[in-house]
Structures are given as structure tokens and as C-alpha cells.
């Protein structure tokens, strides 16, 4: 690459210009990585039908509850290895700003369906013996410094029969998640508190005998659709219809129900890239304008039309691609930190690939016309302009 010194010199002719264009491109691709990355990760989640865990929620929309009675009917479905019900239990610890998320469940069944969560068998036993017992996720325990044996008062959105919203639990165990990176959704459970459903249901005023959702573990991941359909068929046309999907589909649904992310992301990304195109195009044209004479000299010295063309095109290519690499890398670092609660583990490879493809295309399109102009330069005219 004997052209390298020439290209390098060309880039740093006006350092401010190159740096500013690079920064603008970096920000554009950072945004692209964050937005499109989230969008595509969710789409991948929705498309992932091979999974050994299904979520059963109410078909009537998000927070609608399902009857506990559904459980016995579901047991008859072929291919199910385990079923656990769970009911959301939110509140705060001492200060309303210390929000705590909880799950009231049939604890043994729950941990059987989530093998990624580890709890000591003695602690499960203790839960069975202690109605007001609670198992606390390791992240949550760390947050408040809770230990086994502590009594923790929680103020919840659920009112109990004595008319208050105050609940007290005895911590009998702490559970953790294995391999927190591979199943980000599961590790989100370690920031929750798990309590006994029976105690919770007897004590609460209202909605007794209902649960938020079921988690179902199946024997063969490839049969997820068939099993899901079978479960939904059990309750079709009843007052409490279900919708059963794989875990990743369900998590994606939580977001897409909220907002039409695809539309939003396309709009924003389109706008950003269009602006970048204008800025880069202007930069390259401007740069060529100043250096017409230089290219004339190069041609005089013997550079061919084609070589000059390539020299012009390579500059924006270098800037755009390096900015894209840095921007996508930064997005890849930020995204998991933001997205663990919704199962975003990393930037999808397809986003990286499409980002780079866009960078290359953008650079080529911006560079094409100026490069053509350089290629067609007549030496005499160009030199004469000086």
C-alpha cells in the first residue's frame, strides 16, 4: 500500500475537518448501533421459536390475570416437563424510591422450571416450612445488605386482609444465577424476591385464586409451537384465554406492545444517515475543490486517471468505516448494560454487518462524483486555475 502516505497526508490536510466529520459519523453509527441493535435483537427474539421454556400469559393483554385452575388442565398436555405459576408482587423497602420487584410462586416448581437459578435444597425446605419465608436474589440481597435470617418489611401495591399494604417476610435463602451473561433475562430474576404463593394469596384482599402467568418447561425445544398451540387450545373461547410463546418472543412482545419500535428506529436512523450523507458529501466536495491543483500535479507526474479516482474515494471510506467501527463498538459496550432487563445480551452481528455496509456505501456514494471529477481532470485546465 504505497499510497498510504499520500492518503494519510490527504486526510490530515485540514485536521479539524477530518476530526469533525469523523466525530459526526461516529455519533451517527453509535445511534445506529443502539437503535437498530435493539430493534434487531428484539426481532431475533421474536423469531426464535426453539426454546425449552414457554410463557403462558393472558390473551387479553398484559396485566390481566389467569386463574390458578388452569394449572391442572395444562398438566395433561403432551411434552410438558414442568409448570410453575408466578404472580407479580411489587413494592418498596422503607423508602418509596427503593422499589423491589417480587414474585409469589409455588417455589419448588418455580426453581425446577428455572434450572439456571441456583438455590440450596435446605433453603427450599425452609421455604416449605415457613409461610412468610422469602428467597432473595443475590443482586437484590447485595443491594440492601440482606442476609439469611433477616425479617424484611415491604410495602406493596397489594393490600392484605387487615387493610394495610405492609407485608413482612423472613429471608430463608439467597439464590443466584449461573452464567449470568448468556441468559440475561434469567439473571434479571436475581434482583427479585420470591415468596410463597399460598401465603400471599390467602393474605391478599382481592384477585384470590389468580396468577400473573405460567412458565412451562418442555421436553423438546423444537416442539415449542406445537405445545404452545395445544395449551392455548385448552382455553380458547373461554373467559380466560391464554397466549403461549417462547421466552424470547414474550420478552420481545413486552417492548413491541409498548411502541412500534421498527417505525421509530427507521425514522430516526433514516434521518441521521441522511444528515451524515449531506455532511460527508459536503466535506469531500469541499476537500476536492481545494486540492484540484494537487491532483493535477499528481497526474502530471504520472498517476493514472484510475489511481487518482481511487485516491479520492479512499479518503471518505477510511473516515466512515473507522468511525462506524468505533461507533458500533461503543454501542456494543453500552447496549448490554442498558438492556439486561429485556434480554438484550449483545449487539446482533447483523447490525454490525449492516452498519459497516452502510458506512461503505455512504462513503462510496459521497466520494463518487468528486472522484469522477478528479479522474476527468484535464491537467492543463487544472494547473491553469492556480
Amino acid at each position, binding site marked *: 500500500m504505497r499510497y498510504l502516505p499520500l492518503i494519510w497526508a490527504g486526510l490530515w490536510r*485540514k485536521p*479539524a*475537518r477530518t476530526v*469533525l*466529520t469523523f*466525530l*459526526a459519523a461516529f*455519533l*451517527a453509527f*453509535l*445511534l445506529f448501533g443502539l*437503535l437498530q441493535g435493539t430493534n434487531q435483537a428484539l426481532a431475533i427474539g421474536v423469531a426464535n421459536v426453539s426454546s425449552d421454556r414457554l410463557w403462558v400469559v*393472558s*390473551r*387479553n*393483554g*398484559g*396485566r*390481566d390475570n389467569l*386463574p390458578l385452575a388452569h394449572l391442572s388442565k395444562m398438566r395433561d398436555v403432551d411434552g410438558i416437563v414442568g409448570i410453575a405459576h408466578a404472580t407479580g408482587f411489587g*413494592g418498596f423497602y422503607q423508602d418509596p424510591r427503593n422499589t423491589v420487584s417480587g414474585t409469589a410462586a409455588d417455589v419448588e416448581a418455580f426453581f425446577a422450571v428455572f434450572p439456571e437459578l441456583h438455590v440450596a435444597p435446605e433453603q427450599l425446605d425452609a421455604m416449605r416450612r415457613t409461610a412468610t419465608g422469602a428467597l432473595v436474589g443475590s443482586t437484590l440481597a447485595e443491594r440492601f445488605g440482606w442476609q439469611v435470617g433477616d425479617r424484611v418489611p415491604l*410495602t*406493596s*401495591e*397489594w*393490600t392484605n386482609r387487615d*387493610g*394495610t*399494604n405492609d407485608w413482612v417476610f423472613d429471608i430463608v435463602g439467597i439464590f443466584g444465577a449461573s452464567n449470568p451473561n448468556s441468559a440475561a433475562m434469567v439473571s434479571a430474576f436475581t434482583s427479585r424476591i420470591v415468596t410463597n404463593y399460598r401465603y400471599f394469596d390467602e393474605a391478599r*384482599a*382481592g*384477585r384470590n385464586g389468580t396468577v400473573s402467568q405460567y412458565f412451562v418447561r418442555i421436553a423438546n425445544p423444537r416442539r415449542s409451537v406445537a405445545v404452545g398451540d395445544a395449551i392455548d387450545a385448552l382455553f380458547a*373461547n*373461554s*373467559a*380466560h*384465554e391464554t397466549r403461549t410463546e417462547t421466552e424470547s418472543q414474550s420478552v420481545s412482545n413486552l417492548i413491541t*406492545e*409498548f*411502541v*412500534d419500535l421498527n417505525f*421509530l428506529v427507521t*425514522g*430516526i436512523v433514516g*434521518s*441521521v444517515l*441522511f*444528515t*451524515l450523507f*449531506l*455532511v460527508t458529501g*459536503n*466535506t469531500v*466536495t*469541499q476537500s476536492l475543490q*481545494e486540492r484540484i491543483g494537487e491532483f493535477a500535479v499528481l497526474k502530471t507526474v504520472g498517476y493514472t486517471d484510475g489511481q487518482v479516482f481511487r485516491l479520492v474515494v479512499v479518503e471518505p471510506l477510511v473516515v466512515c468505516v473507522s468511525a462506524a467501527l468505533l461507533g458500533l463498538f461503543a454501542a456494543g459496550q453500552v447496549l448490554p448494560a442498558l438492556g439486561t432487563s429485556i434480554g438484550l445480551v449483545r449487539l446482533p452481528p447483523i447490525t454490525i454487518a449492516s452498519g459497516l455496509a452502510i458506512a461503505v456505501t455512504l462513503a462510496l456514494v459521497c466520494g463518487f462524483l468528486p472522484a469522477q471529477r478528479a479522474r476527468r481532470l484535464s491537467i492543463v485546465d487544472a494547473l491553469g486555475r*492556480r
Partner: protein
Amino acid sequence: MLKQSAAITMLNLRNLVRRPRASLVVIAGIAGVVGVLVSMLAMTVGLVRLTEDGAREDRAVVLSAGTNTELISYLDRSTVAAMTEAPGIRRATNGEPLVSPEVLINARVVEAGGGAESAVPFRGMTTPLGFEVHPEIELLEGRAFRQGVLEVIVGKGLRDRFRGLALGSQVELRGSLWTVVGVFASGNRLHESELIADASTLNSVVQSNGYQSLTVMLQGRDSFDELAQFLSVDRRLPVEAQREAAFYAESTVQLRTIVSFLAYVVGGIMALGATFGAINTLYSTIANRSVEIATLRAIGFRGSSVVVAVLIETLVLAAAGGLLGGVVAWALFNGYTVSTTNTGRPLVFNMAVSGQLLLVGVIWALVIGAVSGLFPAIRAARLPVASALRAT
């Protein structure tokens, strides 16, 4: 200094037309930022309008303590009975307290066009009490539902969007076949996207009892404090009351916060990028005009007036960009219908690009313009006159 600045500014502005490309880049870059920001914030404005319109000052909503959404709240019959004795509540002409206990669940409906499923709120009220507490509900077609029968009335906002909701048709909701006996409009647009039926019928269909909320007509605007005071003193009633406007505002606060946060973060990153792009463009513009600027300085114009002039020029471009972005956002999204699920409750609302939003957009544009114009302006003022005049 002022006269000098004004003179240069007029010169620059007249010359803007001669350099369309650079100007367009600055305008387009800023228009993009403002367009995206305003479009996203239009969602929050739309939400606020949805919840504010139709909320009455003399009405309060009561939920069980600790919840702020009807979907978790639970009020049993004894609580409802006790509430009818609370102070501050208006009575109907026959002496009955205007306390409307209401059930709220979701029902699955199918879109008329595509066949996609959607969940809509299905409210249970008692007749005629419910209608007395909600006088803004007006039956456009048909009649109200009767007690103990599978009859439902449909909000105007739903009738055309979903299958089977026209007057007289039968529709399956929550596993039972209901007859649509009426279509209603409501001053409160939130309710216009609901199905309403008899509360006890609804409860028996879903094998539940109790209520999710009480809507209470107050004697007057100030009676609310009386009611709130009574509830906080009487510990037997595990409920909380909120003014209707506050209740609705609270129910959308989570969604609004998230959208605003996203809008400002994305807008902020884009603004930074637009700033870099604008500075870049302006640097090259200044470089192109170095002879012109040096000439001005040579004939006596002071450096500071050049700075002011360049800044003003940039601000004009920025303002143009801000207006363009705002107008495009308005043209594309004002009145655009969005449906979203907000903490389990489906919401349908129109985005609104208000005058205030357009102003916010222009302010952002001006800030970007000021920041990006500063560096090129200073560079223009510091141009070495003699060498600039010598350059080609």
C-alpha cells in the same frame, strides 16, 4: 460596533443565496434533529391532551391503597358501601350518593382490516348510577345496556376499527357472546376507546367479584379535600382518592417519562452530531470567504463585528432548520393515531405537535446554531489579513 455588525450581517445574508450547498447542509442537519425531537415529544403532548380533556374538577377516582392503576386495584362490596357514607359526595335528586363502582378488565378484539388482535378496556358500570356519574357519555346510536344481560355499548373510537362492534351485532368477548346495543361518544376520549357493560354481568362472566375503582362525583371542587381528609383518618377503608385529572396524568406518567427520556437522549446525540457537522461546514465556508473577510477587516471592520455577523448568519440558518424540522414533524405526525399498551391498559391517542413544541424545536436549533457558529466566527475574526488577501 452595532452598525458594523449590521452591515456585515446584511452582506452575509444576501450572499447566503449564492452558497446554497453549505447553507443547505447546516439547515438540513438541524432540521433532522429538531424533526426527530419534536416528533417524539408529540407523543407525550398527545398523551397529556388525552388525559386532560374531559377530566372534571368535581370528580375523583378511588382505588385501593398503594396502587395507581385500576388493573391491580380491588375494592370489595363493604368498602364500596362504606364509601357511600363519605363526606363531600354529591347526591342525585333522589338522594342516592353519586358513587359509581366500576369493574375494569381487558377484552380481546380483532382488527377490522388486518385481523390482528388487540386488547381493549372492558368496563363494568351500574345503571343508571354509572351514567349519572359520567354525564359526558352520550349515546349516539341505540340504547344503554340492561342489568343481568350480555349487552354491551361500544365507544365510538372502537366501533370502526374492530370487527363485530357495530350496532346490533354479536361479538365474542371473554368467552361469551355479547350483543352490541349502543354506540357512545364521550367528552373523555379515554373512555371512548372502551366497551362498557353491566358490572355484575361482567363479574359473573369472569368469575370474579368486587370492583377495580370508584368514580365519585363531588359536591364541589373543594369537597375533594374533605373526602381525602376523611379517608386518611378512617383507617378501616384501605383506599386512596385522587382528583380525576391527577389520576389520569398518573396513569400515563411512566410512558411519558420513557418517551421523553428517549426523545432527549436521541435528540441530544443527534444535536451533537449536527453541531459537529455544522462546525465543519462553516469552517469550510469561512475558508472560502477568507478573501472577503480579510478585505472587510482591511478596510476597517473590527474583528468583533465579524464574529457577531457570522454568528447571526448561523443563527438564521439554524432557525430556518428548526422551523423546517418542526413543520415537517407537524405535517407528518400531527394527529397521527398511536396505539400502545401502557402498563397493561391499551391506549389510543393522537400525537400533537403543539405551538409550544415548535418553540422548543426552534430553541434547540438556536442553541445548536450558537455553539456551532462560535468557533468558525472566532476563526474568521482571527484571520491573518495580509496572508488571506494574498491567497487565491
